[in-house]
């Protein structure tokens, strides 16, 4: 099971996500609400996977945060967004090793996406 970093600016939705991830057997290392907080957490906590909202607190959004993280890590990311416009999806895809889900999160879909992201990530490492 994976160690997960949740990046979400809505703390209620973050709690629900944390609960559901734990229900799936994963460990939520921490919840961050800003891009800069997420960048620091990836360096210090070394999670296996990030679940990232696109709209975040602070000056950078989820996609810009991943662009920064990609400079030092290939960690897989699952974007979870309230806005699933094609232009946003395309920008998200460009950050590599990514999956995209719309809010509200469907637990079954989340489980599938996490498995897929983790499998792809371990194949990459081989």
């Amino acid at each position, binding site marked *: 099971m994976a160690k997960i970093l949740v990046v979400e600016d809505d703390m209620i939705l973050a*709690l629900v996500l944390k609960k*559901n991830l734990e229900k799936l057997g994963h460990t939520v290392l921490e919840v961050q609400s800003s891009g800069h907080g997420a960048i620091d957490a990836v360096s210090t906590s070394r999670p296996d996977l990030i679940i990232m909202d696109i709209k975040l607190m602070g000056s950078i959004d989820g996609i810009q945060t991943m662009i920064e993280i990609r400079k030092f890590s290939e960690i897989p990311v699952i974007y979870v967004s309230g806005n699933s416009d094609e232009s946003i999806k395309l920008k998200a895809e460009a950050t590599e090793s990514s999956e995209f889900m719309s809010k509200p999160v469907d637990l079954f*879909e989340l489980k599938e996406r996490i498995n897929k992201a983790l499998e792809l990530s371990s194949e990459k490492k081989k």
Partner: protein
Amino acid sequence: MVDTFNTVWLDNLPVMARVSDSTGACVYVNNPWQNFTGNVLNHEKGDGWKQSIHPDDKEKYLENLKSAIKEGKEYSFELRLKKKNGDYHWFVDSGKPLYDPLGKYVLFVSVYTDVSNTKKHEEELNSSLEGKEVLLREIHHRVKNNMAVVAGMLDLHMDYVNSPSDREIFLACQSRVLSMALIHEKLYRSETLSKINFKNYIEDLVKKVRASYMDRTGSITVKIEADNTELDLERAMPCGLILNELITNAFKHAFNNLEKGEIIIGFFSKIGKYTLFVSDNGIGIEDDSQLNSSATLGYTLVAALTKQLDAMMEVDKTKGLMVKFTF
């Protein structure tokens, strides 16, 4: 070609006018034209007048004008013309062919009406409408997100509920909130912001309800028979809630002790009338009183929403259960 009599009345017109011959070459521009452009008659003759046309309008306007003159047809085109101070004004150019006493087409008179103020108001109106559209889209987005938070809180609350029947109540509430949130999600993505493709909504709703009752839906197939009719917000919301109740009910109760089952959801419109139905090939119900029972909130809601839709509800128990609404 344009005699003195004609130049006098042309010059006294309260609007700008230009006269061209049957080849399209300019032969006269009246005083209001010369005053506006700051160009004298000799400069404007032939092709000189074309220098006053806005570069962005030039190609299309001249092409349209050329074909109107060639065919000797009346026309009305919009274009921008340059004033002597360098500003551009919007005009409507209305043109008409003139014939000699023998019926030969000899001249073309074009009258230019300044519509800059109307254009400005039109642009302001469009910009204000665009602003309102953005705002409305954002409101639907936020309503949907807030409903997702409400559903999330119900989800969290469920951890503190021990009784399975109480948990069912929370789950049902959550499902109702999410079925409403989905309408707002579809609305903010729709072009009109007032109508949604209901087939698309049904597909997503089925996925959500199935996910909520994942443990009981494995062997149940769902078939959607719907056309691409769009439904307005006023009807989409009650229809969505009715569907949520009936689909949930079918998943939960229709196939008790059966190995597999099928749910068919139909939605179509014909001559201004909508038909919505949910049918299953499950164990059915014993009598209609179950459907009219006020003991279950689900059917109380269905009855209330049927009234809200001003719909007729029909129940067919021949094979499994079919509930049909016409409105």
